């Protein structure tokens, strides 16, 4: 509210808590002034009241404090946002690193599994080669027994003086038994070669 102070331009001291504000005409004090023409030719000065000035000042202080408070909140929120963003970036980087580590482990596991399967396959091949060698030797032994039987019969015929039958038996059954034994012995050779190859393959797989 404005107050009208009329009369002579007598400066009056301002309130103690607002010493810069005083009553008077232009050039006096800090208050707003309204010049009022008076009938006597004197001027009436409408000045800002001390209470309004105080309110204005407190209002400015309150605004400034509020602005500072809001600014502090904004800065605090910005710091929080930046920290959270930094944490998010760090967590994302860690997640990517862990994903990469997991992929590496997965690749490593596949390689390990492949190697183990290769070794299992080589071991199975070695077992099979041993079985084939054993069987081929058994077959060769049977063929050998058969050939020995034929030769024993031939010897018996020879000893009985049946030379023609001896020669005939040797050329028929004997030749067939010998061919069979030759074939079985060749199979033994091949089985032995396969076994040696399987052993070498297992060693290669073992050395990785």
């Amino acid at each position, binding site marked *: 509210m404005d107050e009208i102070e009329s009369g002579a331009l007598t400066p009056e001291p301002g309130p103690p808590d607002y010493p810069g504000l005083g009553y008077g005409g232009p050039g006096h004090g800090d208050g707003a002034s309204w010049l009022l023409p008076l009938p006597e030719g004197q001027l009436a000065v*409408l000045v800002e009241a001390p209470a309004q000035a105080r309110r*204005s000042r407190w209002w*400015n202080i309150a605004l400034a404090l509020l602005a500072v408070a809001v600014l502090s909140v904004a800065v605090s929120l910005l710091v*929080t*946002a930046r920290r959270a963003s930094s944490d998010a970036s760090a967590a994302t980087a860690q997640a990517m690193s*862990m994903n990469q580590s997991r992929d590496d482990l997965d690749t490593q596991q596949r390689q390990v599994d492949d190697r*183990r399967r290769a070794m299992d396959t080589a071991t199975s091949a070695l077992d099979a080669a041993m079985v084939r060698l054993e069987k081929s030797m058994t077959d060769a032994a049977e063929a050998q027994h058969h050939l020995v039987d034929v030769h024993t019969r031939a010897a018996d015929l020879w000893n009985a003086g049946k030379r023609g039958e001896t020669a005939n038996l040797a050329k028929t059954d004997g030749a067939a038994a010998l061919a069979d034994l030759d074939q079985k012995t060749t199979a033994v050779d091949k089985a032995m070669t396969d076994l040696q190859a399987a052993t070498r393959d297992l060693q290669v797989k*073992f050395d990785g």
Partner: protein
Amino acid sequence: MAEPIVTPPQPTVRRRRRFSRGLLILLVVCLAGAVSAGVMARSARHDQTIAIKTRDEASSRRDAQQVASDAAQGQLDDTRRSDLAISGSLTTPMATAQHAVDLANQTMAVYRDIQRYAESLVPSGFNDAVNRANALIKDYNDTLDQLGKELDAASNPAVPA
């Protein structure tokens, strides 16, 4: 009494009002900044939550993969130990088997002699060849017996821990 004539405010008053307006504008700007910062903070916190969740999931998957990889490596180590035992246990039978094969080939050559003498009816050569064959057969049979024992032992090798 005349109507009051309103004159423009004095410079000090204008400055104060300008200052007030400035403070108001600053306050509004600060409020806008605070709101923006709040939105940014909220978004960043959301991103942080998602990133941490993603990281934790990745960590769990990595740990699970580590367990699987360790298990696979353990299986491989077991297989390697087993294969090492097999390879070691096969060394002797392999040598014995090679000896048996050599004997079989030698016996085969003698059998060819026997067959030739039988076909040509040469008893002296026949008997001599049979004697050589018998000696080889005995050695061959002994070698096969030895091989059988060695293979039995190799079929259950002692796997080192």
